[in-house]
């Protein structure tokens, strides 16, 4: 049956598809724009017609042989006008039809046709439905249309993080929380709900499933038995692995797409002119801005080129170096200062809390630290940008990257100092320390959210009013993508750190991201203008994903891993009470596995491979060797690209040389033909541009 014929040979299909595309490209470049150069080639209209007919016939016969889906795709992708595509389609259809008529129209073929039609319609329906289901599709379109791709990348990032958190919420909820709730549905609350808990996470929430303390580690004996310890351990581990894999995957993908392909000679002005225009922007003001910025940037690059030729004197280089050294020292000092402040506040506060246990004031005082952290996060980056203004960088992109680096340094050192405190002192001083850490993270997440709301109100709304009403010279604020993205990364790091201590923390993160999306959207359209220096949006996106991976995810992962592997869980609460380390649950489990007959191999693998250092040395060694090997391959490819490029240039030279020869010969022949005009037939004039129409295979 035809269906069976369609399935095999996917490679063949792809090959054919490529062939057709190549042909069409050739055809389109031979006959661009209503065949204008054909006049130059001085072909008669009959011949043009014939050539056209030949090409079309070839194309039709190739299209007929493709399976239905691929044919539709190929026809859509023909760079022809709609009329021509329709013509091609009708020819294809008629050929198909005549073929069909050769076969006897049995009930079976009819049925088959019907089903294939149905399947196709169904497939189309599903794709449309899927497109509609994607969250915020229209909102994203609108944002892209009004503010351009670089702003859009921020909102895409929000959406991406939201998906991450929804997945983690689903996993945690279904594998940890639901069994726990089923197992022991009524937790006795010693404290009444007062409202302040919403902010602090303490008191009423302390014993709920929101935090580590609300779970207990007994094996649920109902049928089927459910081992809570293992479930807790493996759920968190699976989520972390999932996050890591998807981060690495998307990072590698976008790195390959946006950096590796980009590096090359086509980099500066050509890119800016040929592909930077954002056709999707329809806002009049935004377009005017875009034009102005583009003109400024072009002028800058040109003057930079001139400057690069003019050598910079040694004294200015030294001055710049000294300036950036001063700036870096200032930034590092500020970061260290804020870290020290946070550390002392933290340890002071724990003394305060232990003195005033179970009092409303004590509970409220726990909010001091998150507020201070958020204030630092708000104010120090502003100072950094002031410091940044004092420096001088020739390349605006270096400027942006340095700003990002300093902010990341600050945020990560703050988180680092907090984590250090939580892991080095808290476990030995507080009875249910995991819940305590969970509550601290909860407070940080929540206060950060409140500051984000306030920030967009005061920072953007009021700044807009001041800029438009009081000091028109200030103008409308720009939407600062870098700061906003870094705040998101910071919040996500907190969420990852808290996942072990508070398994339902992703709820907060989901709500937060959801609100942030709408808030920023409104704030953007009411208060802000699109940023002036839009770097290359796609590249910046890669940097953000990389930042999310390297300090943020890796940091959180190592924190959780350290907790699981080497910290003693609290004795009074939580799933792992009574164990030396949470990881011990796996040991215990493996021991029970050992006793089950027929599964000794699993125990053997665990005992001799996974617990053996040599195994990990070997894996590291293999990875290193592989990396080296792949690096060598890339080096070889680079060499190859260089050679091929030279070859293209040489061939271009060859072509020009041959063309000149051809033209001079033609001139001679025309001169001789002037004596005997009957024998000379027109037609062999050559257009100087014909060589551009040859496809350049690269």
């Amino acid at each position, binding site marked *: 049956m035809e269906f069976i014929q369609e399935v095999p040979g996917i490679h063949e299909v792809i090959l054919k598809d490529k062939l057709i595309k190549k042909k069409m*490209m050739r055809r389109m470049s031979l006959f661009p*724009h209503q065949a204008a150069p054909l006049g130059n080639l001085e072909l008669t209209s009959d011949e043009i017609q014939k050539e056209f007919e030949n090409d079309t016939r070839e194309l039709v016969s190739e299209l007929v042989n493709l399976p239905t889906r691929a044919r539709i795709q190929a026809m859509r992708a023909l760079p022809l006008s709609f009329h021509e595509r329709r013509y091609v389609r009708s020819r294809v259809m008629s050929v198909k039809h005549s073929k069909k008529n050769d076969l006897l129209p049995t009930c079976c073929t009819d049925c088959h046709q019907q089903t294939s039609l149905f399947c196709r319609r169904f497939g189309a329906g599903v794709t449309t439905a899927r497109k509609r289901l994607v969250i915020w599709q229209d909102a994203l379109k609108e944002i892209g249309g009004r503010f351009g791709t670089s702003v859009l990348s921020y909102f895409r990032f929000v959406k991406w993080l939201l998906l991450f958190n929804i997945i983690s919420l689903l996993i945690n909820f279904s594998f940890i929380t639901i069994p726990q709730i089923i197992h022991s549905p009524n937790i006795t609350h010693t404290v009444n709900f007062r409202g302040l808990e919403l902010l602090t996470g303490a008191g009423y929430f302390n014993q709920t499933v929101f935090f580590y303390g609300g779970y207990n580690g007994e094996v649920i004996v109902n049928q089927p038995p459910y081992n809570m310890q293992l479930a807790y351990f493996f759920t968190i581990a699976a989520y972390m692995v999932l996050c890591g894999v998807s981060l690495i995957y998307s990072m590698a993908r976008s790195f390959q797409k946006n950096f590796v392909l980009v590096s090359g000679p086509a980099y500066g002005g050509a890119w800016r002119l040929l592909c930077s225009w954002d056709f999707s922007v329809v806002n009049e003001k935004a377009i005017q801005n875009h034009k102005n910025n583009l003109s400024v940037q072009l002028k800058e690059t040109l003057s930079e080129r001139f400057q690069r030729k003019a050598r910079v004197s040694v004294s200015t280089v030294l001055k710049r170096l000294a300036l950036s050294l001063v700036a870096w020292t200032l930034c590092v000092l500020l970061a260290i200062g804020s870290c020290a402040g946070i550390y002392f506040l933290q340890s002071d506060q724990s003394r305060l809390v232990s003195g005033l246990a179970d009092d409303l004031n004590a509970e409220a005082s726990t909010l001091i630290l998150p507020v201070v952290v958020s204030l630092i996060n708000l104010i120090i980056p502003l100072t950094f940008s002031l410091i940044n203004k004092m420096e001088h960088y020739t390349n605006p992109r270096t400027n942006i990257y340095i700003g990002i680096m300093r902010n990341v340094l600050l945020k990560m050192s703050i988180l680092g100092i907090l984590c250090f405190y939580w892991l080095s002192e808290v476990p030995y001083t507080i009875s249910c320390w995991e819940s305590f850490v969970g509550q601290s993270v909860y407070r940080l997440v929540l206060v950060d959210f409140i500051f984000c709301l306030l920030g967009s109100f005061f920072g953007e709304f009021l700044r807009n009013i001041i800029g438009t009403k009081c000091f028109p010279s200030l103008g409308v604020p720009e939407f600062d993508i870098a700061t906003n993205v870094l705040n998101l990364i910071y919040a996500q790091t907190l969420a990852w750190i808290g996942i072990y201590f508070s398994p339902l923390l992703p709820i907060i993160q989901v709500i937060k991201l959801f609100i942030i999306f709408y808030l920023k959207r409104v704030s953007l359209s009411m208060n802000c203008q699109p940023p002036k220096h839009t770097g290359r949006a796609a590249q910046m996106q890669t940097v953000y994903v990389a930042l999310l991976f390297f300090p943020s995810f890796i940091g959180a992962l190592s924190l959780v891993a350290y907790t699981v592997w080497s910290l003693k869980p609290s004795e009074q609460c939580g799933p792992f009470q009574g164990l030396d380390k949470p990881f011990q649950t796996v040991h215990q489990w493996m021991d029970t596995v050992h006793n089950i007959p027929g599964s000794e191999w699993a125990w053997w693998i665990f005992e001799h491979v996974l617990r053996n250092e040599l195994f990990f040395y070997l894996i590291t060694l293999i990875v290193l060797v592989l990396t080296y090997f792949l690096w060598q391959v890339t080096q070889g490819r680079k060499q190859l690209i260089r050679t091929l490029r030279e070859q293209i240039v040489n061939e271009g030279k060859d072509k020009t040389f041959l063309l000149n020869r051809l033209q001079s010969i033609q001139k001679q022949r025309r001169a001789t033909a002037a004596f005997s005009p009957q024998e000379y037939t027109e037609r062999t004039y050559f257009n100087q541009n014909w060589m551009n129409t040859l496809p350049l295979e690269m």
Partner: protein
Amino acid sequence: MGTTATKLPKDQLSEYQELTFLTKQEILLAHKRFTELLERNDRQQPSSRVPMDKICALPELKSNPFRRRICHVFSTSDTKDGSLSFEDFLDLLSAFSDSATLEIKSHYAFRIFDFDDDGTLDHGDLEKLVNCLTGESADTRLTPEEMSQLINNILEESDIDKDGTVNLSEFQHVISRSPDFVSSFKIVL
């Protein structure tokens, strides 16, 4: 009759779906917008055209510096007046849609930038392109020296076979290195 006249026949709709990158909803929306642009008595005829000025006045194209070029490129009118039939209009939206391939997008981008329709981007085309992008006002316009310097830079970077012009494959080569292009070459109704 007004409502029935603006409806698309089912088989035509499926044909449009099959031959363009647009979804059913997008085609219907495009049809609605297009019939609004037509004169009342032209609405009955399937092949009636909308003049270029009306297309350029659409809010999606109104401020686009390339609007006239876009109309010219997608128009199949015999008189080359840039007027669009409904199918031309669909073609335009299809090429600028989300799901169009990079090849199609770069092909049409090339034709839009090729102001003199000769199949290559030469010095003159690039100059017009720069003027379109930076705007015609005195403070944003580049000086002649800057312009020639810029065009030389562009050719140096993208003219691989060194024949003084950028052809389609060279153009596509530049574009293949710009990951933002696909998302920015987009017009949505």
